[in-house]
């Protein structure tokens, strides 16, 4: 197979005409053909569109009119991102034949940056119900071991990036759906600040918790994708109207001077993480100290408080979106989605109001905790990916989520690979920053990745 490239590496080679976007796209299509019958990361491959995009990019590069670092870079979109003229199914029977008339804003912006669209990626049904085996398409599988789970809901993106089928892709994150697959698939995934990336044209799960964002092999690649996706959009009522910074500006600045807080009780008491995960966090903290950062312990409310607030809001808002179809076509949803969301019909109005009152208090708490801290460190998942056939139906409710505190508060957070566990699968750390401080977040994540050699290891099946 063709060698793996990050977006940054491919961009450099394309810019110097050492790499042809068409050949890069053909290599990705060949990899998809070889590996995706096992991984099921794609719902739909769009080779004609991809090759047309690649030829156009190549023409721009050869004529000196390249658009920037994403020109000619093969990506794909989670199948809740609307794509004009191309089915957008949400991995659900309900939308099996739905063809949007327009692109989601971020799909359009990534296309305008010159990316090559390889197709649409698997998701948990409507970004919530998975891993499911009773849907029109099978669930994505983990390239590090296809018998294992990818996490979700941006499951196809996680698997496809890790296996090198795409160089980057889009995801959405309502309770951890970017950072979970990034963690279990051993890649990077950033959930930016609420409002930084438009949600217009992306199928909703829960309006006040939904975030769009990229997944890629490295934090640097996430920065490049985020650059194209971020920005104000009048079509999204929650879109932040503020200047978009250069997310790559501080990537080379290292960690010197950063003030790092570690939320140790999250992964030691609230949801005890595996030994490999805890070792990864402690090693990361040592590396940050060695680079000149300071580290202190930060205490927040128990993770279960964030979890209860976030999940109650999530299932109630999701129920509001899906109630008509739950009543008219309950059996057309997969069991996991319909049973989880149906519970939202039992939430009283007063319970939802108490959850959003509590949400404000948790936001206040997070703001105070980060007043003198630049980066918060915790786990992204409790450990390695479990076997896909052994994921309990109520797993998302049984233990508090490491990722949902940053959906509840809207703070930006990234998951990056921090090593491998006993089973040979990846483990991860999660870094978070203050709102709209993605530049600092990506700086810290990049510094960490550069200080380790985890980015040099790829899944054996894709080698």
């Amino acid at each position, binding site marked *: 197979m063709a060698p793996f490239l990050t977006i940054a590496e491919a961009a450099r080679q394309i810019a110097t005409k050492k790499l042809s976007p068409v050949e890069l796209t053909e290599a990705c299509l060949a990899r998809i053909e070889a590996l995706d019958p096992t991984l099921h990361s794609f719902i739909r491959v769009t080779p004609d569109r991809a090759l047309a995009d690649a030829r156009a990019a190549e023409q721009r590069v050869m004529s000196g009119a390249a658009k920037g670092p994403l020109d000619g870079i093969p990506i794909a979109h989670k199948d809740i991102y609307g794509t004009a003229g191309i089915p957008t199914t949400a991995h659900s029977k309900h939308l099996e034949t739905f063809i949007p008339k327009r692109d989601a804003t971020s799909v359009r912006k990534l296309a305008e940056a010159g990316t090559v669209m390889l197709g649409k990626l698997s998701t948990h049904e409507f970004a919530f119900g998975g891993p499911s085996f009773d849907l029109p398409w099978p669930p994505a599988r983990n390239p590090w071991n296809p018998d294992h789970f990818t996490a979700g809901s941006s499951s196809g993106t996680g698997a496809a990036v890790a296996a090198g089928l795409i160089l980057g892709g889009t995801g959405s994150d309502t309770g951890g759906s970017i950072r979970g697959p990034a963690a279990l698939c051993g890649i990077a995934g950033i959930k930016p600040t609420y409002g930084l990336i438009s949600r217009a044209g992306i199928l909703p799960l829960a309006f006040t918790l939904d975030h769009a964002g990229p997944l890629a092999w490295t934090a640097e690649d996430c920065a490049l994708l985020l650059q194209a996706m971020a920005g104000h959009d009048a079509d999204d009522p929650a879109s932040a109207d503020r200047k978009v910074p250069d997310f790559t500006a501080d990537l080379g600045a290292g960690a010197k001077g950063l003030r790092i807080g570690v939320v140790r009780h999250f992964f030691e008491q609230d949801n005890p993480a595996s030994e490999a995960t805890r070792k990864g966090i402690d090693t990361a903290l040592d590396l940050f100290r060695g680079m000149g950062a300071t580290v202190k312990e930060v205490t927040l409310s128990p993770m279960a408080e964030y979890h209860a607030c976030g999940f109650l809001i999530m299932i109630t808002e999701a129920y509001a979106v899906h109630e008509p179809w*739950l009543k008219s076509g309950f059996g057309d949803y997969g069991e996991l989605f319909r049973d989880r969301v149906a519970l939202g019909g039992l939430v009283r109005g007063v319970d939802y109001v108490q959850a959003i*009152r509590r949400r404000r208090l948790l936001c206040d708490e997070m703001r105070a905790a980060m007043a003198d801290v630049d980066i918060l460190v915790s786990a992204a998942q409790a450990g390695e990916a479990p076997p896909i056939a052994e994921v309990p139906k*109520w797993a998302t409710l049984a233990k508090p989520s490491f990722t949902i505190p940053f959906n509840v508060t809207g703070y930006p957070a990234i998951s990056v690979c921090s090593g491998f566990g006993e089973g040979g699968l990846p483990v991860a750390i999660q870094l978070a920053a203050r709102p709209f401080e993605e530049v600092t977040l990506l700086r810290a994540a990049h510094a960490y990745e550069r200080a380790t050699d985890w980015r040099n290891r790829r899944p054996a099946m894709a080698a």
Partner: protein
Amino acid sequence: MKPSISPETFKTLMAQTGIPLSDAQLAGIYEGYGYLESLVARVNAPLPREAEPALTFSTETK
């Protein structure tokens, strides 16, 4: 997590949603009701009277 109410009471509760459900489908959702009860109990723990809801959610930037 075991729900605090019986399957029969749960059936009555679910009927209020208007979703037509078979007994097997009801049983599938009933399993998760105990988790919902624990979430509801947590968010209903006493709050300061003046605690305002995050009605129009926006990220704090101060």
